[in-house]
């Protein structure tokens, strides 16, 4: 059985990627499961979707614990523990990262047992309108890495999933998917199936036993205010707004009032962005009268690496 996980951010088309690959595998004659997994989070938040495919009926259920192939649409998710990108990937697995950085650097950084390859990004993405096509790219790459999906089946999967959105959408996504399919040609079939998982293989999570406590002790936060500030929604951000204070005119009532999240506060008459919570919507950039705010791609900071 093949087990594939797609990791990305809400809005990058990971659910669509799993649907496309699932349809393509199904039309090739596989039994297929595909499912997205996300919580209450929205566009920008870490999500993943997964696909199982087998020539025999699939009895396995739930999230994939031991993937054969993991695709990461957004490399800024890798250091986010909540995204769980590396969960369960072992020496048998293949990790594909969409990144502007070379595979060698990711191998050093991650020191992972799995084989690490990179689908190169040549330009930073400053037009988010192209984001949903990332899903098609990932589906195309996955199809070729499995080595069992013909190009026609991939095209049929895209038509099946996106046909309702019109010919232009299908055309754009098909072009992205086929480009990735071609790019992965040297690695066709690099992913191998893993066997059935028996109940005896199941490793229970590392539960921590907590003694029973009174409600006042175990749920103290229920009476607390403003606890949402403990949630770092800044991790959702793919583009980071930065204020150039040489250009800022101090009209804080514009950006600070209009920031949907209230993540721009006012200090000494100047707006200050709270990067722990800014989701990177860039409304501030769009409304700033003197154009003092610019957008920068979020990336893993090189200074965090040791030699």
């Amino acid at each position, binding site marked *: 059985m093949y087990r594939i996980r797609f990791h990305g951010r809400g809005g990058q088309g990971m659910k669509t990627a799993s649907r496309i690959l699932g349809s393509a595998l199904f039309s090739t004659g596989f039994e297929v499961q595909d499912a997205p997994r996300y919580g209450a989070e929205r566009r920008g938040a870490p999500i993943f979707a997964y696909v199982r495919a087998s020539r025999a009926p699939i009895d396995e259920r739930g999230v994939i614990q031991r993937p054969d192939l993991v695709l990461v649409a957004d490399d800024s998710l890798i250091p986010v523990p909540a995204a769980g990108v590396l969960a369960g990937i072992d020496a048998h697995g293949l990790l594909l990262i969409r990144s502007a950085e070379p595979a060698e650097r990711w191998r050093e950084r991650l020191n992972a047992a799995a084989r690490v390859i990179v689908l190169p990004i040549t330009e930073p993405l400053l037009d988010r309108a192209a984001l949903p096509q990332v899903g098609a790219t990932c589906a195309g790459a996955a199809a070729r890495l499995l080595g069992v999906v013909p190009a026609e089946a991939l095209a049929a999967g895209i038509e099946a999933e996106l046909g309702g959105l019109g010919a232009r959408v299908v055309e754009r996504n098909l072009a992205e998917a086929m480009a990735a399919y071609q790019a992965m040609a040297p690695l066709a079939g690099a992913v191998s199936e893993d066997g059935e998982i028996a109940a005896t293989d199941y490793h229970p999570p590392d539960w921590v036993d907590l003694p029973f406590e009174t409600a006042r002790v175990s749920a103290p936060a229920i009476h607390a205010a403003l606890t949402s500030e403990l949630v770092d929604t800044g991790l959702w951000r793919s583009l980071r707004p930065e204020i150039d204070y040489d250009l800022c005119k101090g009209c804080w009532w514009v950006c600070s009032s*209009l920031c949907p999240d209230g993540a721009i506060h006012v200090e000494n008459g100047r707006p200050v962005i709270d990067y722990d919570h800014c989701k990177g919507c*860039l409304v501030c950039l769009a409304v700033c009268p003197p154009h003092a705010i610019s957008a920068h791609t979020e990336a893993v900071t090189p200074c965090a690496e040791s030699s």
Partner: protein
Amino acid sequence: MSEQETRYRSTRDLPSLHLLGTGTPMCAGCGGLEALHQIYDQLGERSLILNAAGCMTLLAVYPYTPFRGSWLYTAMASAPAGAQGARDALDILVAQGRLPPEEDLRVVVLTGDGSAYGMGLSATSGAIERGLDFLYIVYDNEGYANTGQQYSGATPHAALTATSRLGAGFPGEKKDLFAIWVAHRPAYAATVIGAEPLDLARKVEQALAIRGPKLLLALAPCPTGWDFDPQRTVEIGRLAVQTGVWPLKEYRDGQVVHTKVPRERKPVEDYLRTQGRFRHLFEPERQDALIAAWKARVGTYWASVET
């Protein structure tokens, strides 16, 4: 409201201290959150929010809350009934001397359009009829956005939704909730939008000064459900006002007054073109009849206002 009566004479008078917590799971660029955080700047911790099921149910997912005061979650149709119960309980506590009058709370319903225009209408009508002293905030994103933008009673004509995907989009018409409220002769009713913070601040100030049933109906541009880049939330909100699609008005003392009349209305197309849910009006072929119907609807409204 005349300038003498308001604390908010210019945008410089807008609150620079934001009271609603950051770190909520609303989408990046959420027009509803943008309006809510501006309203909450004046509402503050002495409030009890009754949240009808919808996107904003997710604001307070235990143990996290962005509020400084109390919050209660109700089923979709029940928030006004919950508000009645909360108001009665607070009144009894105050009357019995168990709650000092200065610690009394303002009772606030927070609801999306699915509930406000549809499921919750009966309970709302009853609460207004009983003269309940409450503030009723609607974030109107014109569909059941929390579950993937199925159409609601607030969906505008011809918009594509998850349940009206084909051909000409949603065949129905957007209900006029403001008129439905005004027909009840409430204490106060106003339409607002987060993209116009000064107009919004004055209306919140006005509503909080009056006892009885009060409506704040906020059009909430929704990047996810309306299909546009999150940074355009304010631009689209301003266009809704400038094209006359979303009239800013208030009802008090038996009169409806328009608070921001566009001197020269921009073409309705300028608004429609910004959103993927109306793209089929322009591509692949221009749908002249549907566009003309939109123009006629907006024109007829303003003709009735201007005479």
